[in-house]
C-alpha cells in the first residue's frame, strides 16, 4: 500500500485507546473507525488487527460480514431506503427505482463525484411512517418518489454546513 493512500492515523489512536485490546472489542472499534473515516481503510484494519492480536483475515471477515461496514469510501451523504415489510408494501421499490433514475446508481453504489451513496436497509423501525427514506441523519416518513429532489437537496445543504 502506498503512503499516498495511507489514512490519517490520529483518529485511530484515540479509538484504539478507548477499548481494551482484546478480540471482544473488534466490532465496537470497527464501528468507531467507520464513523471516523467513513469506511474501513485497509491500512487501518491492519493496525487494528495488530493491536488486538487478531489475525487480519478475521478482521476482514468481520468487516465484510456486517452490513454496517464498507471497505469502499462512502459518499458525503448516505441515502438509505428502508425496505422493511411495511415500507415494501407501501412503495419502497418506487423510491429505489426513482433514486436510480435520478442519481444513476444502484443500491450499494456511490455517485462518481462522491456526493451520494445509496443503500437499502432492512427496517429502521419507523414502520408506522412507511415508506421511510433517510437522507444523512434526517428521517422522511411517508416518503414520495415525486419529492426526492427536495429530500436530496436538503441532505446536500446539511452536508455543506
Amino acid at each position, binding site marked *: 500500500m502506498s503512503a499516498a493512500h495511507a489514512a490519517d492515523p490520529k483518529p485511530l489512536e484515540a479509538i484504539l485507546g478507548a477499548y481494551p485490546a482484546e478480540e471482544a472489542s473488534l466490532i465496537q472499534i470497527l464501528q468507531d473507525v467507520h464513523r471516523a473515516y467513513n469506511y474501513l481503510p485497509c491500512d487501518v484494519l491492519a493496525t487494528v488487527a495488530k493491536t488486538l492480536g487478531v489475525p487480519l483475515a478475521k478482521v476482514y*471477515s468481520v468487516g465484510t460480514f456486517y452490513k*454496517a461496514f464498507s471497505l469502499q469510501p462512502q459518499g458525503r451523504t448516505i441515502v438509505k431506503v428502508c425496505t*422493511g415489510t411495511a415500507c415494501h408494501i407501501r*412503495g419502497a421499490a418506487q423510491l429505489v*427505482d426513482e433514486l436510480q*433514475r435520478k442519481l444513476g446508481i444502484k443500491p450499494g453504489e456511490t455517485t462518481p463525484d462522491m456526493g451520494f451513496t445509496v443503500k437499502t436497509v432492512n427496517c429502521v*423501525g*419507523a*414502520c408506522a*411512517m412507511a415508506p421511510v427514506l433517510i437522507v444523512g441523519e434526517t428521517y422522511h416518513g411517508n416518503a414520495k418518489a415525486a419529492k426526492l429532489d427536495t429530500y436530496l437537496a436538503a441532505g446536500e445543504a446539511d452536508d455543506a454546513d
Partner: protein
Amino acid sequence: MRIESEQAFQRFVAQARKRSSARSREVLVCCGTGCLANGSAKVAEALAAELAKRGSDVPVATFTKRTGCHGFCERGPLVVLQPQGVLYTRVKPRDAAEIVEKSVIGGEVISRLVYKDPASGQRIPGYAEVPFYQRQTRVAMRNIGRIDPADIEDAVAHGAYAGLAKALFTMTPEQVIEEIEVAGLRGRGGAGFPTARKWRSCRAATGDRKFVVCNGDEGDPGAFKDRSIMEGDPHSVIEGMVIGAYAVGAHEGFIYVRDEYPLAVVHLTLALEQARARGLLGANILGTGFDFDIRISRGGGAFVCGESSALMRSLEGKVGEPRAKYVHATERGLFDLPTVLNNVETWADVGAILARGGAWFASMGTAKSKGTKAFSLVGKVKNTGLIELPMGTTLREIIYGIGGGVLGDRPFKAVQTGGPSGGCVPESLLDLPVDYEKLTEAGSMMGSGGMIVMDDRTCMVEVARYFLQFLTEESCGKCIPCREGLHQMLAIFEDLVAGRGKSGDIEKIERLARGMQLGSLCELGKSAPNPVLSTLRYFRSEYEAHIERRACPAGICRELTAYEIVETACNGCHACFKVCPVGAITGKIKELHVIHHDTCISCGACFDVCPTQAIRTFPKKELAERGVA
C-alpha cells in the same frame, strides 16, 4: 447521591413524586423516531420557547417534556397536555403560540388539533378516550410516553425500580424466580420459552462468572416495539436486567442494540449513567452488597444476530454465526459461560411483575400465554402504531377495533406476523385469539410482534419472494440447507413473479421447504420457509394463476400487469400525470388521460393517487391480444 438503604430509596421515591406533582402542568411532546421524522423536535422547541416568552402570563409552572413513543405514530407529531389529558395530533411548530395562548393559559381545547375518529367522524379530545388507546393494556410499555426517558427521577416518580427494591430488600433469588413462574412469563422475542425455567437453569449452572444479556437486535422488518421501549423507557429494561442478574447470580450484563437504532443507544447510555449515579446499578446496589453492571454493545447490522447464539458470538467480537443448540446458553453461552438472554420486552415486563405480583400478570391472557404483548400494527391499516394488549385478543379486534380497519376501506387480505420466520394469516382466521400456540397452529408465529396488514393490492407470491430475498441476503451462510435452499427457492420465485413459472414449481418449493426445516442449523433457516408455506396454504390459487395463467390477481407483479384508465371514471384531475415517473401518461386538466403502454413501467404510482379509482389493472398478456407491442 447513591441510595444505600431501603429507607433512602423510599425517600428518593417520595422526593421524585413531590417534584413530579409540583409540575402539575406538563406539555408532553412525543420525540420517538416516528414523531421525530414528522418534525416533533421543532414542535418541542417552539412550545418551550413560547412558554418561556409568555412566562409571566402562565398561571402555574408548566414544563415541556420530551417523551418516548406514544405509539400513535401515524398521527404524529403528538402533543399531550397534562393534567387535562388532552391529545393534539399532527401538531406543527406554528401551532405553538395558539396552544400556549388558548390551552395552557386559557384552558380551552383547540378543536382543529384534536383527533377525529374516522369511524364516527367525531372529535375526541381526551387521550384516554381515543379508541386506539382505550382498548390497550400497557405493562411493558407502562411508562412510555408518560416519562422523560432522560430523567431518572421522572421514571422513579412513575414507579420505576419499585420492583427492584422489592426483590433486593424482601426476596431471595429463588423467590424472584418463583414470582416469574407464577406470572407465567414467556419470552417476548417470539419463541415463547418460559422465562423462569431459563433463569432457574442458569442459576443452577456451575461457575461464578455468569452473564445477563438483553437482546435489542430487533431485526424483524415491521417490528419496532423494542426500539420504542429502549428509547422511551430505558429504565424498565435496566430494572428487569438487575432483577434477573440477582435471580441467577450474574454480575455482568450486556445490552445488544441494533446499529439502526441510534436514539435507543443514546437514551440507554444516559439511563445507565443515571442509574449508576443513584446506586441502582454498579457495585453494592442499593446498599445490599449485590454488584451488577451493564455495558451496551452496538450491533453491526446483521439480521441473524437476533438469534441468541449468533448474538453471543457477535458480543465476543466475532462473525455472527449461530451454533447448534444441544448445549444450552444457560450452561455455556457468552464466552462459554452460563448466560441468560432475554428480549427487551421480556426484561421490561419483569419489574412490573415484581412490583405488582405474578398473580396479577397471570390474571391476563390465555391458558398458556399469560400477560400482555406489544405489537407494532403497520402496513395497510388506518391507525398504524405501537400497541399493547392482553394475550388472546382477536386479530379482528386488533385490526378493526384499534387499527380502525384497512386503509381506504379496501378489502382485507391477510396479516403478516412474526417477520421472516412467520406467515400470513388470512381473513377466514380474523377471529383467531392471538397467543403463541394459536399463531403457530395457523402456520405463523408470534415473532417480535410485527403485524403487517395487507389489502387486496398485495400479491402473496410477491410477499413470499420479498421474504426469501430478505433471508437470502441475511443468511449467514454457515449451513448448506439454509444458504443454498434459500438461493434456489428465490430463483424459483423470481421466475414466478416474472411470468416464467413452470408446472411442478409448487411441488419443488414444498420439497425444498421440508429439507430446510429439517436440516438447517438455527431457527433462521428452520423457519425460513414459513412465509412461503403459509401463503401456499391460504393463497394457493394466486400461485396457480401466476404459473398457469401468467397473471397476477392482485395486479402487482410488474411483468404480468398492465394499467389503463377507465374513460367513464376519469375526471381529468391530472394527479396521475404528475406522479408518473416515466411520462407515460398524457392528458390535459379536466380532460380524459391516457396511459401509453410502450413507456409504462407498471409501477402503480398512478393507481395509488387516483381519487376516483379510474385506474384499472389487467394481465399484461392481453396487450398482445389487443395488438399493442
